[in-house]
């Protein structure tokens, strides 16, 4: 399938070559300026590269928005133990499908990002942990990795620099929680993908007990552009706290779903209505989730904000992974929330009681409300369970599961009440 929609108001840095088949093989990538940033990086010192990335203000695109350069600076420099890079390509947050597009159309963009980032953190081995379901994408990525080895961008003495790096593609096997960074490390080590208690943080004790940096695909893919063009160039987009561009995966009730790359000060309403075309004709936008299913739901009149980390937060939600889910007035909010919660109930690793029990309990109550068998006390009960799930567990999945429920009851309480009191759904057919 050709790349669906490109829009003149986008700022296509990472997605510039999406949809171009010729950009996939290494020659096509080099023709488009690929691997120039690597040459430049190898001529500089690892600390210079870390400094450029720090100055650019790049923040992690996996969901938490942690400053990337700062994360790298936690890695030991003494070479006492082997350092590792783990690229998080487990992308499984419902509503998010941007990393897949990066790997599918521009695999070398990611590989170059992995090599430069590994160099900066002094890693000799990088793993790309890719979710097992990405069967066609992994074939494309594998081919690109083999090409990079054949051309001397990976392996011993890369391009005569004296720097050695191996890269291994590691396939996951179906577990959302393997996307949480310490779950990922356990999974990479051949264990159940159960998150670890932090500290120690991965930079202290990561993969195989060694210092490790975990970064998202989109984060790493941005690195070559920053290294090649400089921090100021990157800061021409976005805000001072959220510089650069970001991919938004847009799905749900939209006329033109797909991935759009916009500066981080772009208006959220414009993204939904102008770029994505808004909901189908004759429909009204009811609700929007801007950053994957684990961020608070917004009402249609809350979305006049910019898409920066701080802009969306001020409007009551979170940028998260940039997985935008639009719901029009045909949506049954109870069903939508039930579906999201069932996801978390299914994906909870079960280590923490509040998460394991809380997610299934929420799902059970939501199912009965949806069937018209809700009870008067169900809404306070849902809120109470939600409150008990937040901030008490090993990883934030538990918090994430409560977020859609609590925010939907706060903002769309009437729909829940209609189900409970009259056994009726308020969705417009």
């Amino acid at each position, binding site marked *: 399938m050709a790349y669906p929609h490109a829009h003149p108001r986008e700022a296509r840095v990472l997605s510039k070559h999406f949809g171009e088949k010729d950009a996939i093989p290494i020659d096509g990538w080099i023709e488009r300026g690929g691997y120039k940033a690597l040459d430049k990086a190898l001529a500089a010192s690892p600390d210079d590269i870390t400094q450029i990335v720090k100055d650019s203000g790049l923040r992690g695109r996996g969901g938490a928005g942690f400053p990337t350069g700062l994360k790298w600076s936690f890695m030991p420099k003494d070479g006492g133990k082997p350092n590792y890079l783990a690229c998080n390509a487990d*992308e499984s947050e*419902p*509503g998010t499908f941007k990393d897949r597009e990066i790997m599918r159309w521009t695999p070398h963009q990611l590989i170059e990002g992995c090599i430069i980032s590994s160099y900066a953190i002094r890693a000799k081995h990088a793993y790309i942990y890719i979710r097992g379901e990405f069967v066609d994408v992994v074939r494309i990525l594998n081919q690109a990795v083999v090409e990079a080895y054949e051309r001397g961008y990976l392996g011993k003495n890369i391009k005569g620099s004296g720097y050695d790096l191996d890269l291994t593609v590691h396939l996951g096997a179906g*577990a959302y929680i393997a996307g949480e960074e310490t779950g990922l490390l356990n999974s990479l080590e051949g264990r159940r993908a159960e998150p670890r208690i932090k500290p120690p943080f991965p930079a202290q004790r990561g993969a195989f007990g060694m210092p490790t940096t975990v970064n998202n695909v989109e984060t790493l893919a941005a690195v070559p552009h920053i290294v090649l063009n400089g921090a100021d160039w990157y800061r021409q987009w976005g805000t001072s706290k959220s510089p650069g561009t970001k991919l938004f995966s*847009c799905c*749900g009730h939209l006329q033109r779903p797909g991935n759009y790359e916009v500066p981080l000060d772009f208006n959220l309403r414009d993204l939904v209505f102008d770029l994505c075309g808004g909901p189908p004709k004759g429909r009204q936008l009811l609700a929007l989730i801007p950053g994957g299913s684990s961020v608070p739901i917004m009402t249609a009149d809350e979305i006049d904000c910019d898409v920066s980390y701080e802009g969306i937060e001020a409007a009551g939600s979170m940028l998260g992974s940039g997985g935008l889910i639009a719901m029009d007035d045909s*949506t049954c909010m109870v069903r939508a929330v039930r579906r*999201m919660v069932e996801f978390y109930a299914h994906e909870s690793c079960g280590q923490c009681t509040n998460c394991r029990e809380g997610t299934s309990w929420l799902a059970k109550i939501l199912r009965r409300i949806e069937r018209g068998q809700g009870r008067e006390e169900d809404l306070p009960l849902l809120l109470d369970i939600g409150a008990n799930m937040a901030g008490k567990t090993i990883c934030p999945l538990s918090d994430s599961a409560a977020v859609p429920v609590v925010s939907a009851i706060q903002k769309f309480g009437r729909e829940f009440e209609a189900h409970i009191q009259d056994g009726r759904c308020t969705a417009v057919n």
Partner: protein
Amino acid sequence: MSESIHPAVCSAQPSQRADKNPDAPLFEGAYKERFDHILSRYPNKRAALLPVLNMAQELRGWLSPATITRVAELLELTPDYVRSVASFYTMFQLRPVGRHLIQVCIGIGCDLCGAEEVVEDLLEATGTRIGETSRDGKYTVVEVECLGACGFPTVVQVNDKVYENVKPEDVEGLMKELD
């Protein structure tokens, strides 16, 4: 599977195929080479577990108790440990599945856009219920969570092929393709 695979990508070979043979010999010939390549990429044997289970599943279609025991031996782990890890991951099949494993996404993106009808139509077309294998051993239909292509609903994966934008009216054509 005759040509040799670069060691860097031996741990990432998609594994669900239609030509599964539950009695296939484990890790001989090209597969032995792949096994060795996988081990060469990690500092210990345990780390090879997911890739090796994946390869076993590619060969045999599912992870029988005998397969698990053999993998455990090769990686110097206990069968209980291997089973406990395998059961954590949804893509490892601990029971035999049909020749065509049909996974339908019911994640929020697909659900909003009518995944439920696609599931119903697929169940009708295969004459099965969720998770059951059809009598002729051909099909197993399962519901899965977000497949990471939410903008192109409904997303359906059959063995290691992904179909996007599947509408109820596409089900008939899809079934023909599988025969």
